[in-house]
């Protein structure tokens, strides 16, 4: 594996399977009453969050703590960053503190790439702008594998704002690596103009794709997009691309429904679909901790004696 996890495209098939298999083993730890492992004792993991994301930060924090790492949470709000400190100076500060890994969430696409040129520790991308969110894709793959078995040849449909979605980018890359067949469904305004060069299929017709899907992943659609004319109204979006009960019925009986959260219930997904037994949405959260443990373990664990 590479030293950093910045893009899902950095992972070979063997890397990805190693992470998923390691997570499977670590999941057993989470089922014990004492959930802590001594693996990363004495190592420092910094959570560097320039964007508010309590869910993702807590997930990484729990993962690092269960591996006994020291965790420093660095949030941009109320810190020197809000006083105009540059990303580079923040990076050099963390470097001086001896961070072994930096988990970064940033609103600018590519911020983790820049960070990786300024620090010696491993950089883990916890979401950069509209680029990628590789641990989300890993936890999605982990969740799918637990429900569906191997992903080889499985048909995964990703629906929604692909253009602005870091989750979609990472998922397309990782699922392709793992041998799944991905179809993106969105209004044409919410797809990159170059989407034809991506390793996936593209459709504008959700109803046509649903009956052939093993997993359907609904992406969060921000209501603000409507103001930039990406779609006319919430109602129209929901009618054409929302997963309501009737559409849910068109899916094969074993097919699962996923969502990276936070959801807009009633917009991209109906409440009864989100809460159904075939929804993995709550599992995804639990699996997030497990997969992040596996990533930190594999990036940092190898160096301890």
């Amino acid at each position, binding site marked *: 594996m590479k030293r950093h996890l910045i893009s899902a495209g950095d992972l070979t098939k063997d890397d990805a399977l190693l992470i998923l298999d390691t997570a499977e083993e670590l999941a057993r730890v989470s089922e014990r009453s004492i959930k802590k492992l001594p693996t990363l004792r004495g190592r420092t993991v910094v959570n560097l969050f320039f964007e508010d994301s309590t869910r993702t930060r807590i997930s990484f924090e729990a993962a690092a703590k269960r591996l006994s790492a020291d965790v420093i949470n660095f949030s941009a709000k109320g810190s020197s960053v809000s006083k105009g400190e*540059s*990303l*580079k100076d923040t990076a050099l500060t963390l470097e001086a503190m001896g961070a072994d890994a930096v988990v970064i969430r*940033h*609103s*600018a*696409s*590519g*911020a983790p*790439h*820049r960070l*990786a*040129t300024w620090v010696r520790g491993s950089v883990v991308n916890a979401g*950069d*702008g*509209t*680029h*990628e969110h590789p641990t989300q894709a890993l936890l999605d793959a982990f969740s799918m594998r637990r429900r569906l078995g191997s992903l080889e040849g499985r048909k995964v449909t990703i629906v929604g704002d692909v253009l602005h979605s*870091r989750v979609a*980018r990472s998922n397309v890359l990782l699922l392709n690596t793992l041998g799944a067949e991905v179809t993106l469904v969105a209004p044409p305004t919410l797809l*990159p*103009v*170059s*989407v034809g*060069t*991506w390793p996936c299929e593209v459709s504008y017709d959700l109803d046509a794709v649903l009956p052939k899907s093993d997993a359907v992943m609904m992406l969060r659609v921000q209501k603000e997009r409507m103001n930039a004319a990406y779609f006319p109204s919430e109602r129209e979006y929901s009618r054409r691309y929302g997963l309501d009960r009737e559409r849910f019925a068109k899916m094969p009986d074993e097919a699962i429904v996923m969502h990276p959260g936070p959801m807009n219930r009633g917009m991209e997904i109906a409440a009864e679909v989100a809460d159904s037994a075939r929804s993995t949405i709550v599992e995804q959260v639990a699996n997030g901790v497990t997969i992040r443990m596996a990533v930190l373990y594999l990036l940092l664990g190898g160096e301890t004696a």
Partner: protein
Amino acid sequence: MIIRNVRILGGEPADIRIEDGAIAEIGPNLPGESVVDGAGAIALPGLVDLHTHLREPGREDAETVQTGTQSAARGGYTAVHAMANTSPVADTAGVVEQVWRLGREFAHCDVHPVGAVTVGLEGKQLAELGAMADSAARVRVFSDDGKCVDDAVLMRRALEYVKAFDGVVAQHAQEPRLTAGAQMNEGVVSGRLGLTGWPAVAEEAIIARDCLLAAHVGSRLHVCHVSTAGSVEIIRWAKSKGWNVTAEVTPHHLLLTDDLVEESPVGAYNPIYKVNPPLRTRADVEALRAALADGTIDIVATDHAPHPVEDKETEWSAAAMGMVGLETALSVVQEAMVETGLLDWAGVAQRMSVVPARIGRLGGQGQPLDVGAPANITLYDPSARTKVDPSAFASKSRNTPYEGMTLPGRVVATFLRGRPTVLEGKLV
């Protein structure tokens, strides 16, 4: 004073005698005191840049008139046009005269200020174009560069108004609504990198509109830094109609492509490649080279855009747009156009000296190296190979995309009206 053994436009070796700032005699083995041994270098008419950012007044931390013109001289330039997006904006006779006087004072090359088209570059009200034209700076080129004059009525009026003093409007063609938040060329790479796309159509739509406006009012339009194959097609069409449209291309758009944002020796998302207009695709580069060769694009202009280190050592979206270019321009043009057989040295002289001087209406610049012409001369050794070292630049800024690259050629000497500003590659 005699410059010995130079090859004018790459021709046969000859000597040049200079008297009173002009070329007095050209021929083999001229008698007299030899000041400079050209050692077989190519002699070109002193280069003229139609698009330079000198940053003074306002951003003296990035560049000053002094350092910018030193950088120009090192690059073989004897005249530069200083863009108007300074602070305060060069939208009054006072500011353009200040920049013009600073240029005269340091005298590394001639400085011709460009006047803003609109007050404060805000695109709302015409600046006092006539006052700037009548000032000591004698402004003939007007541009809101960095911003597009996107209001069609305002653009029409500007084009009409400058006819009174033979001015030209140099348009930064960028439809603002199509490029809100844009970060890089919209295409395969931007889609993968999750960076907001900067579509080619945002440039092309404005160029098409402006060509039609220039034709309608019978004025002169100059298109800044053309970057797409589609723009080339539109300009070719406008020229075929006989309309008075000229265009420039930057050295970096002749050499670099948008894949560098994803993969380069300096890492992904490195803002050293962030520039406006953005780097485009290989197909665009090929179209731009062909257009420069066949005359559809008239000239090379550097868009020398200095920025301090801290404005580039950031995440991509926070970084400033632009690259320095004066000291590498001729080498990049040699690499992209001469080594590829698309241009000879006479063609380079046309596109980097003669025609830019004509567009800017500079009488004493861009003259062919003939007896009687002002002795604005650049000596260039095309056989040299130089690894680009930004720390050696005369420019105050270091934001070059060519760091570490080996480029052909080296400016040996520059003469401004007979007076050397650069000798043996060093400032005089």
